[in-house]
């Protein structure tokens, strides 16, 4: 799905999920590793504020990813 959206629309798609090898396999080009499988963009164990802070950090990273020129599949770890 991620690959075909990027291919069809011609726009960058950043995928946030936890299992990086699967994202590499299916052909995601911009990859942000998530927190955990059942809550990729949040961490409820850190309370409401902490959870939101984690989400914010991941989304800011995702926004950096879509602004970054890349030549090949890239994992944005920070």
């Amino acid at each position, binding site marked *: 799905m991620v690959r*075909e*959206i990027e291919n069809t629309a011609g726009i*960058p798609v*950043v995928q*946030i999920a936890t299992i990086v090898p699967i994202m590499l396999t299916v052909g995601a080009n911009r990859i942000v590793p998530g927190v955990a499988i059942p809550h990729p963009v949040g961490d409820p164990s850190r309370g409401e504020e902490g959870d*939101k802070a984690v989400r914010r950090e991941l989304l800011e990273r995702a926004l950096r990813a879509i*602004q970054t020129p890349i030549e090949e599949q890239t994992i944005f770890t920070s």
Partner: protein
Amino acid sequence: MAKRVVCYINQFFAGLGGEEQAHVPPSSRPGVAGPAMQIQSLLGEEAVVVGTVICGDSYYGEHLEEAREQCVRMIAGFKPDLLVAGPAFNAGRYGVACGDICASVTGSLCIPSLTGMYRENPGVELYSPKTYIVKTADSARGMKDALAAMSSLAVKILRDIPLGAAMDEGYFPRGIRKNFFHKTNGAKRAVDMLLKKIAGEQFITEYEMPVFKKITPAAPVKDLSKATIALVSSGGIVPKGNPDHIRVSSAESYGVYDISSLDDLTPDNFESIHGGYDRVWANDDPDTVLPLDVMREMEKEGVFGKLYDQVFTTTGTGTAVAHAERFGQEIGEKLKKDGVDAVILTST
């Protein structure tokens, strides 16, 4: 009584000419022409090649529906028991024509069909599930072997001999699984395979993983402050009650939901229906999978231009690759039309 076979070949192998004759429309002649002659001699008394249908490669490619309809009609007129097309080797247009006529004849006339191609011929990917495509070399230098393999498969089909695995019979897998009892159990076979792998020896998997395509990365967003960004998720977050009845696994559809008036996903408005992970956290706060709350905050702060008014969601567990690709293509078309600049896609 000998069985009846019809052959399909292109203008080149029929001796009509090369590229300059590729535009010729379908024609048929009784008996053999071109490689069909050799097929007849290999089939011996097993079957009679009662007719050969010929069509220019460009004609078939450019007038797909007419060419198909005319060829099927001509082939049906010979009342065959089997259609043998090609072999097309690595010729793309010829391969597509051979695959298409085989698939059409098998599909509409319920007559078995077979053809031969090189593995990289585009006809293989398009038509291998719908007909028997024997593996051949990449050029007509491999004609002798190709015709021998095709004729031997033809005889088995004509005699109704049950076919073995695609690998053993020499044709491209058709995506069909047949159950049978193996002499050794799965655990032993798996360990044997592992030992071979560790020893660096060749082994054959019993469950091939799909091969995914790779694409060139799209150019980055130039001006984030003016960019419209869309949220997409395969994490199964849907409006409460799952109004579109998206399946909890093996989804064949996705939902499109208006979030233009929402700032936050809560257990009151959205839920997770995903059958592949523990939904406790997602149901408690769907934003942990589909991050609407923080995206809305950043939009208001002017971090980026605009959050697209709709979200696209499905469940990505056991979902067939073909369906997932279709979802992506449809979503991509819509986003392109609406001028969206980038997508954040979350998966569980």
